[in-house]
């Protein structure tokens, strides 16, 4: 495990497979943690496979008093990209949405994003509901200080995700080298993801198909003359 620094947070980055070839970075769902081994569904990936514990999850820091947003989680992933360089990202649930944000923000470093089903995929819907102030009940959600952080569960499940905001990140992702930088494999299609799936530059396909397509493209991008 490697420890990354993002502000006052220490992030756990795991090398699940350290082969030569393109990097695949796994992002877990809300309340989950990185897998200990390469999941069977991505075993076909012939390059290296890494996984990141987002803030408040797994072996990463649990900050005091919350303040979570998917945009801050995006910066967690950017800390991993700073170390790994270009990666293809496979995100489950929350990780799929965070993957979309970083794919738009760093279109030349994210060499393809695959969005899959998982906890936290829907977020808090397309707009906020009635406001309230909620303090996590540690006795129900788990002890504050342990992972997953109850504040993460509370705040990231209420994270508002307007479809047009998500679409703007698809447009940004298209500024990178791939014609179709995003694959949607999920069964679930909350409104933001339905909008993404219907966007230009997004392919709806199986996980196996997406992994095969992006694994072939990535080396071509890394060394276009060597192909």
């Amino acid at each position, binding site marked *: 495990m490697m420890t990354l*620094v*993002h*502000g*006052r*947070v220490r992030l756990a980055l795991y090398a699940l497979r350290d082969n030569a070839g393109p990097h695949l970075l796994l992002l877990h769902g809300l309340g989950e943690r990185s897998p200990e081994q390469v999941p069977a569904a991505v075993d076909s990936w012939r390059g290296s496979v890494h996984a990141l514990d987002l*803030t408040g999850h797994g072996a990463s*820091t649990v*900050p*005091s*008093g*919350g*303040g*979570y*947003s998917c*945009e*801050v989680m*995006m*910066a967690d992933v*950017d*800390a991993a990209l*700073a170390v790994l360089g270009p990666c293809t990202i496979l995100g489950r649930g929350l990780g799929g949405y965070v993957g979309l944000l970083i794919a*738009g*923000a*760093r279109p030349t470093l994210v060499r393809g994003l695959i969005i899959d089903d998982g906890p936290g995929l829907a977020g808090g819907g397309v*707009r*906020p509901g009635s*406001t*309230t*102030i*909620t*303090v996590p009940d540690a006795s129900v959600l788990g002890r*504050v200080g342990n992972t997953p952080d109850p504040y993460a569960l509370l*705040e990231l499940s*209420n994270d*508002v*995700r*307007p479809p047009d*905001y998500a679409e*703007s990140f698809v*447009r*940004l992702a298209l*500024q990178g080298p791939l014609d179709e930088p995003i694959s949607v494999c999920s069964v679930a299609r909350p409104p933001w993801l339905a909008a993404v799936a219907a966007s230009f530059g997004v392919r709806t396909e199986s996980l196996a198909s997406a992994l095969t397509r992006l694994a072939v493209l990535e080396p071509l991008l890394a060394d276009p003359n060597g192909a």
Partner: protein
Amino acid sequence: MPSMIDRSRNAVIREDSVDFPGAQAPDRSYRVDAAGVGIAVHEWGDRHAPPLLAIHGGFDFARTLDVFAPLVAAGGWRVVSWDHRNHGDSELVAMHGFAADLRDAAWVLKSLTDGAVPVLGHSKGGALSLRLADSWPHRVSHLINIDGMPARRKMPDVSDTERTKLLSTELEGWLDHHRRASTGQRKSDTLEGLARRRAKMNPRLTHEWLCYLVTVGARHDPDGWRWKIDPMMRMGGFGPWRPDWAIEGLAGLAMPFLGIVGDQSEPMGWEAGEEELRPFVPRHARLETVAGTGHFVHIEEPDKVAALVLEFLGRPPSGAAQTRAAS
């Protein structure tokens, strides 16, 4: 009624301290534990007087109220403010955000009383005050908002392509800042140098006042003064939030409401005058424009704004049996 400019003429700037007429350090300062986050709370006025919660703006700190708060306290109130997390003397924590600030506000309020109190907010503090009132109407007796009311700032003439470019630049800048700031700290300067740097964002505030702010809002390190503001924080931003959503909550607030704005444009201003705000504020809202002021209305004209606030609130309730006095 002395304005900031009048007071500034009589300010005395020394190498590491500034006397600013009318500025008073808080009568009490202490910490509230907001679910593990240490929040620095400052109070002006009699500890047994009824509390009034005052919320500062973004990139500010409670002691920006050093002139204004004593004037309100002199009217019989216990003015209670706090440094937001990652601001001033409150704890630097890994993350901050509107929901977290709102929870911190709730912890400070809980430390004072289980009842309702008047809440005053400036700028981002005004936005927080609106959300606090919308979320917990039973805990806010009166609402005073100083240039922190949402306006419709749409850019209908900006195409999607241009909008995407703007977002792209903002995102890259924000992520690059996060990478750099992980190990960085705020730039140091002399007392007057730091004041001059802040003047770029607050061009209407006098040099003397900004120098005073440095002495109460910055840290004097061996290599110079630096603002006690989290170096991870950055002006501007992006995200899914829309001003329209805040506007919708504004009209339904039932408590007495006083909105105060200036009429001079400046970089930090919310650019919403009485005319723009009237359709969105509660029907019973009172809106006041303090002529000749910008975004920091209560700093530029502390006496006028304090008089407005005291007149709006009326006589402070006698006895504060439901409140907890600061130790």
